[in-house]
């Protein structure tokens, strides 16, 4: 499951087995906002575990949708259904929207854009 020694830590040392690359996590963290200036060495390590739990949770919920549809292949739509059905994943609704373009999610702020349509 975990790959020991495959990923070097931010300081270039082996911080132990982590299933996600720490340097990449750090880069994503920095890209989240200009406010993020310094990140301690342990923060990406916490995230590598948190992301694992996050991915596991969405996957489990998505799979429930797959099974409901009597299928054996987990599709993007199952992920979308799981996101919509779970309050805590509200921040992901734009991501799983089928019309969404990947390039814009990087700069997305915490609050989702609310479009108010004029009444006709």
């Amino acid at each position, binding site marked *: 499951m975990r790959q020991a020694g495959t990923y070097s830590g931010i300081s270039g040392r082996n911080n132990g087995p982590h299933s996600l690359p720490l340097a990449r996590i750090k880069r994503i963290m920095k890209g989240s906002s200009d*406010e993020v200036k*310094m990140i301690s060495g342990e923060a990406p390590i916490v995230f590598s575990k948190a992301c694992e739990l996050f991915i596991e949770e969405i*996957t489990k919920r998505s799979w429930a949708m797959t099974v409901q549809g009597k299928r054996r292949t987990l599709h993007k739509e*199952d992920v979308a259904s799981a996101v919509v059905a779970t309050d805590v994943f509200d921040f992901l609704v734009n991501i799983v929207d089928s019309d969404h373009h990947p390039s814009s999610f990087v700069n997305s702020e915490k609050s989702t854009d609310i479009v108010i349509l004029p009444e006709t």
Partner: protein
Amino acid sequence: MVDENEKLLPIANVGRIMKQILPPSAKISKQAKETMQECSSEFISFVTGEASDKCHKENRKTVNGDDICWALSSLGFDNYAEGMGRYLHKYREFERERANQNKANSGFATGEERDEQIAHSPTAFELRVLEKGGSSSLTKPS
């Protein structure tokens, strides 16, 4: 295209984590994995933003593991936050033991990067390790 991938976790890693939690016969579409990559990056950004806000309000420059745990809890991921607290504790213990080992071997852990707040002296570093339980902050200026 390379730039986009830098903002995402590798699809192989994401796919592997997904596979682990599913029954052996389950299949995962490539699009589902890609969606999960994007969701993961958004998760990291979302939580980091919250943690960073807190640091900013408290006039701290460095986002640390405790801030991430706090942000997870604050955003509704209480169940992760609990597990993270323990994971972080274990990691700090691990780091402390390794720092002690390095110290024993070389007199001073020359390979370690030091927290910006620590005075540049071996004594201060040792004290910090003993006081704070080994949370060595490895920071790089952006």
